[in-house]
């Protein structure tokens, strides 16, 4: 008869089993072997860290790592801030420089120190502007002037606030120091205004010079145009002379008056220009004859020039 075993009975049967214990001698032996190996492994691990991975990894495997990282971050951050201190408009660190100035001002507690610091900021802006002038970085002048204006306005605001506060407190000594700062600030402001005025005058002068230069250039261009037309006329006359020479060759027995009449007709009719052009080839062929006839044509040439001039 098959007996059906329930789940609980099966679980109870499984749990009832008691296991054999490990032999005590074997257990102790295993323990000794394990401890011996543990000593070797520990030493090897230390040596492996130091020898194979180097002292850097060894240090970074220890709790020193956060300290080293923090030191590096602090030093690099301080280096960046120091580098930013000498930044000028156009430099990458220039915004950081201005931000650091604002931060320093926020952390300054004494009113006198605040006023003096804003004065220093204005001086720095003006120094930067001078350096830019020396280096002839004209494109950065506008930005520098704008920053100088802002620094001056900010310094004036701070100075006014501080002045009111010190008057309320009746602190005579601080008030004198602040007045001294105010005088220096006025001096810097005047200097800045003078610089701007000088720049404006220079700009006006430059514009006038440019204008004059443009006018001169225009006049030169007109003259050159006149010369060009005169040369063209002269060429035309030469061509006409050649034409005349050709006619002279064709009518060797004709007199100088007849040649003059031909020239007058040429001037009055534009259609004769084709004849003039076609005469160039003839003149090349008859170069010797041209030379011979040049003296004879000198009178008619001078007459033509006078007529051209009169037309103009």
């Amino acid at each position, binding site marked *: 008869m098959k007996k059906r075993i329930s789940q609980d009975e099966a*679980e109870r*049967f*499984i749990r009832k089993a*008691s*296991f054999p214990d490990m*032999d005590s001698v074997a257990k102790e032996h*295993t*323990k000794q072997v*394990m401890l011996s190996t543990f000593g070797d492994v520990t030493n090897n691990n230390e040596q492996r860290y130091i020898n194979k991975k180097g002292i850097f990894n060894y240090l970074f495997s220890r709790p020193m790592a956060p300290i080293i990282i923090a030191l590096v971050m602090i030093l690099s951050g301080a280096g960046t801030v120091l580098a930013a201190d000498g930044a000028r408009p156009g430099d990458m660190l220039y915004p950081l420089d201005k931000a650091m100035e604002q931060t320093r001002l926020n952390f300054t507690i004494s009113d006198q120190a605040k006023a003096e610091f804003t004065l220093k900021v204005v001086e720095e802006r003006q120094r930067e502007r001078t350096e830019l002038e020396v280096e002839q970085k004209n494109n950065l002048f506008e930005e520098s002037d704008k920053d100088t204006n802002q620094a001056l306005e900010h310094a004036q605001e701070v100075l006014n606030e501080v002045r009111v506060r010190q008057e309320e407190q009746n602190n005579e000594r601080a008030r004198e120091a602040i007045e001294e700062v105010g005088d220096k600030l006025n001096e810097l402001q005047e200097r800045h205004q003078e610089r701007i005025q000088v720049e404006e005058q220079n700009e006006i002068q430059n514009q006038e010079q440019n204008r004059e230069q443009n006018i001169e250039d225009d006049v030169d261009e007109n003259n050159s145009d006149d010369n060009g037309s005169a040369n063209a006329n002269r060429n035309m006359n030469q061509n006409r002379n050649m034409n005349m020479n050709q006619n002279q060759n064709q009518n060797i027995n004709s007199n100088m008056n007849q040649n003059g009449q031909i020239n007058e007709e040429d001037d009055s009719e534009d259609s004769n220009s084709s004849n003039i052009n076609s005469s160039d080839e003839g003149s090349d062929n008859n170069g010797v004859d041209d030379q011979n006839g040049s003296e004879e044509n000198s009178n008619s040439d001078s007459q033509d020039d006078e007529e051209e001039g009169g037309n103009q």
Partner: protein
Amino acid sequence: MKDKNSPEDIQKLVQGAQAGDSMSVTRLYELFSERIYRYLVIRVSHRETAEDLTQMVFLEMIRSLHRYKKQKDVKFTTWLFQIARHRLIDYYRRNKTILQIDELADTHVELQVEQEEVNVDSYYSRIKKILHKLSEQQQNIIHLFYYEDMSPGEIAEITGMSAITVRVEKHRALTKIRNILSKEHLEL
């Protein structure tokens, strides 16, 4: 068989061992050597072999201790039983031929040799025979669940299965055991 020491105590011992403290290592060995031995001896059915494997497990523990980190609530107990399971798999792989001969011995009387079973109660012998009729995974699950009082989640970490699969396999294994017990008319 739950840890007598709290997980925090065990964690402190592990940290001490990682720092090179031999006393912590000794204490860990005393806490876990019997449990590892039991896990192995019921599977290999040979005491000396189980002792050798236990030694291998603890030597592996010593060598890998610097790599152990308490991550995602992986307990040291779970980590140590993972090592034991891997050593057992290695043993099975190396002794595949021997196991096949053992299987033949069940049917061939001339191949049968008496195995040393000293001071072992009858329940142990019975349950061992029954467990050997289960699959490898089911043997693991039954042992860890009933003799180590591990949760399906912990067993899943050791065996590399999901917790649901562990529950399903445990149920199948238990049904199989019930059937075997019913079939053999064993007196409980």
